[in-house]
């Protein structure tokens, strides 16, 4: 069972994502947040169940994805969480900046549901291997 969180301010994107995850054979438990501040508040609650995989939109009000990424990577209790950036941006600069700041996965939001499902499925299946075998997480980079 993979514990997953998606933080995205766009309601439609959250809905599509949930539908895609429900369709995939990997067993998951999904939590949704609307923006970065809610996410950080949740993650820093004592004794909270931390996710195995965190999907993070970049453009969000209040606290954006990049700020969340930096905060999580600077926090000793949270820095082990595998982070997947999930963004409409395909700028090479954004991709490289997020990887350099500790993101493991970068997914450019696909334009069709079918492509979304395929991308999320690939991420979950690769992530499962990192979750269950001793792969080196420090060098886990995946761009889709």
């Amino acid at each position, binding site marked *: 069972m993979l514990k997953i969180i998606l933080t995205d301010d766009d309601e439609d994107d959250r809905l599509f994502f949930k539908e895609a995850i429900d369709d995939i*054979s*990997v067993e998951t438990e999904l939590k949704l947040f609307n923006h970065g501040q809610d996410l950080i508040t949740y993650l820093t609650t004592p004794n909270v169940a931390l996710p195995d995989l965190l999907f993070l939109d970049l453009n969000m009000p209040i606290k954006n994805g990049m700020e969340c990424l930096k905060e999580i990577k*600077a926090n000793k209790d949270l820095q082990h969480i595998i982070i997947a950036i999930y963004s409409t941006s395909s700028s090479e600069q954004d991709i*490289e900046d997020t*990887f*350099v*700041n*500790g993101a493991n996965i*970068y997914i450019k939001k696909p334009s069709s549901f079918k492509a979304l499902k395929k991308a999320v499925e690939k991420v*979950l*299946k*690769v992530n*499962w*291997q990192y979750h*269950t*075998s*001793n*792969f*080196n997480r420090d*060098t886990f*980079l*995946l*761009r*889709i």
Partner: protein
Amino acid sequence: MKIYVSFDGNRTLKAFLSDKLKALDFNCKLNGINEIELDDNLSSEKQNELFNALNHYHIEVIEDKKIAIIERIKNSIDEMLNNEDAQLINSSDFLADKLNYSYTYLSTLFSEATYTSIENYIILRKVDKVKSLLLKTDLTLTEIAFKLNYSSVAHLSGQFKKTTGLTPSTFQRIIAKRKLTQQNNL
């Protein structure tokens, strides 16, 4: 002061386990990394003591035989990738021989439990090895391709790109920049 250490997790664990078991005075034999052969006369009390000792190091006793086989498949794959001679053998023959089950049985079992095929898992593992050789040694891509039995550098690069979405050189650049950023933040 900061020092850097490098170790082969499997060998370290094996040495550690065998020291630990000896210290605890258990009459048992380590068969490879995931199999411990116990004395048949071991009392259930003593058995529990052993399980608890192992649990303390986050080592779980696997009661499910299927899970145990999958762990053995994964370990045999690592053994195969670490041994240049073994790489010349067809991986399905190697695994079937090593584990003494038909490859069809092993591959069905593996796919059902891990969301991936043995072939795919081997590719992921190989790419993980390429990454570590790229970062920890001065080997060129050509030398790494040869070492890991790729037919050509192009084949290695293609598989790396397909698996990670990045070229080996982009990967290296990002990891180097990340290290620099982490050092600056300290």
